[in-house]
């Protein structure tokens, strides 16, 4: 394929993630999520906000197949997410998941951590000897340049600051050439400037590739600023879902509402 040829678009439906009346629990007594119904369109930035313990991380783990609903159905690109199912592996390679704790391998370098995103498409034997095709290495360097870490590519992950670690996790996720990015509070503990830089990085990646981002935020203002849609979760239930279009905020049940009204509901 020549570099100039434009990719032929696949025939895709608008919806990439669909959850229907999903319930799930960690123990027999309490449901961590109740009656969740939502659908996410391709290419959007979908934000999930809510107090801590409301079930946001659980929601992401359902989408990437680490957890399973006890009731209801989930479809991610027509498939039921299940990390233990061999048939879902191809899809897993296309889901970039950044857990709240980032999950970097602290004794490996920034470059090695980034390259891990390419592992599913690399010959296993070669990868065991740390042999990566040169185009993959170039891609990793390109992404590290993009996130501003090229000069630290040989550093060990444990030697990085919190903001730098998040950038590596983003580079690793983008290295997957993902269709979906699941990011769990990756800007929550950062200062304002750094969190805006990181959100811009993701917005930039979304402009370049047709990436659907589902991002959990603690700060609803950040969600309103960057997301096309915001779902508010409270005690495991989706209490509100709004569309954001510039300054206009649309509640799909009651019509337009002001930012102040949303902040009040969030409290």
């Amino acid at each position, binding site marked *: 394929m020549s570099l100039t040829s434009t990719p032929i678009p696949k025939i895709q439906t608008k919806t990439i993630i669909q959850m229907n009346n999903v319930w799930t629990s960690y123990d027999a007594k309490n449901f961590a999520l109740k009656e969740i119904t939502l659908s996410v369109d391709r290419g959007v930035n979908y934000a999930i906000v809510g107090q801590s313990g409301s079930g946001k991380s659980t929601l992401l783990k359902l989408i990437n197949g680490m957890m399973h609903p006890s009731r209801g159905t989930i479809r991610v690109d027509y498939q039921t997410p299940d990390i233990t199912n061999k048939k879902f592996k*191809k899809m897993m390679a296309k889901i970039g998941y950044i*857990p709240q704790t980032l999950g970097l391998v602290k004794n490996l370098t920034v470059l090695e951590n980034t390259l*891990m995103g390419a592992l599913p498409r690399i010959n*296993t034997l070669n990868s*065991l000897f740390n042999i990566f095709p040169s185009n993959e290495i170039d891609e990793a360097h390109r992404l590290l340049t993009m996130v501003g870490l090229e000069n630290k590519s040989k550093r060990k992950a*444990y*030697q990085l600051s919190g903001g730098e670690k998040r950038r590596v996790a983003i580079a690793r996720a983008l290295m997957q050439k993902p269709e979906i990015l699941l990011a769990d509070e990756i800007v929550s503990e950062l200062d304002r400037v750094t969190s805006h830089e990181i959100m811009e990085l993701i917005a930039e990646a979304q402009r370049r590739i047709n990436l659907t981002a589902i991002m959990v935020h603690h700060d609803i203002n950040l969600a309103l600023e960057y997301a096309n849609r915001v779902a508010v979760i409270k005690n495991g239930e989706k209490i509100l879902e709004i569309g954001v279009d510039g300054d206009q905020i649309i509640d799909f049940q009651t019509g337009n509402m002001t930012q102040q009204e949303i902040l009040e509901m969030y409290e």
Partner: protein
Amino acid sequence: MNPKNNLIIGIIVAVVIAASINIDANPVNFVDGFPKLIKIAEEMTQVDPNLFHIAFSAMFETIQMAIIGTVVGVAIALPLSILAARNLNSKWVYAPLRALLAAIRTFPSILWAILFVIIVGLGPFAGVLAIIMYTIGFVAKLQYEAIEAIDSDPVDAISSIGVSKLQLIRYVVIPESASHLLSQILYMFDYNVRQTSILGLVGAGGIGYYIINYIQFFEYGKATVFMLVVLIVVLVIDLISIKIRDKFIIKSQRGMEMKIK
């Protein structure tokens, strides 16, 4: 000191007394034998300096045995530890393997040495095989415990990329447990040098062979030379492993670069 501690101390003393009755331990025997001990100590001071070069070459053989035993033992223990880790395998794999490793650990190295002397004959090869067995039993256990204790965050994050099991082991499990492995190898080598020093008692090579011979013929002065050499070498190895530990392990565990003077 509170009453609970007193109770515990009381129980320990009672257990020691009970145990001594069973094994015929009698302080009177010890006191009776004391003059003999003084005589031995006196003879031990009459060291024979001419023997030092033989002692060092015997010690060199001992260290060679310990190096081979440790390296081969660790090389076998590593894959076994991965297979024995509960977080990476099904019960059908790890349970029998753990039972086998536990069985290997029940024998002290000296018993393995006797067994291998019977199988392969007298000499250092039997000693090396004994050290290998002992190393496998212990390093595999320490290492599967280290693997089970690794941080689950990178494991979850990398598994969810859809990597293969071998890739997960190569890129997460081994790097995350590597600092433990290095300290276990150092500890094991240190321990194996001391163990190998006594394997000569059963004819399995190394410096212990000389020591037991001299003691059998009551040449305590000569035995002292060999024991001194063991002491010196063990101390030197100890110093070296402290240096290595500081350089590689403390740094990675603290999570930052430190200068150690």
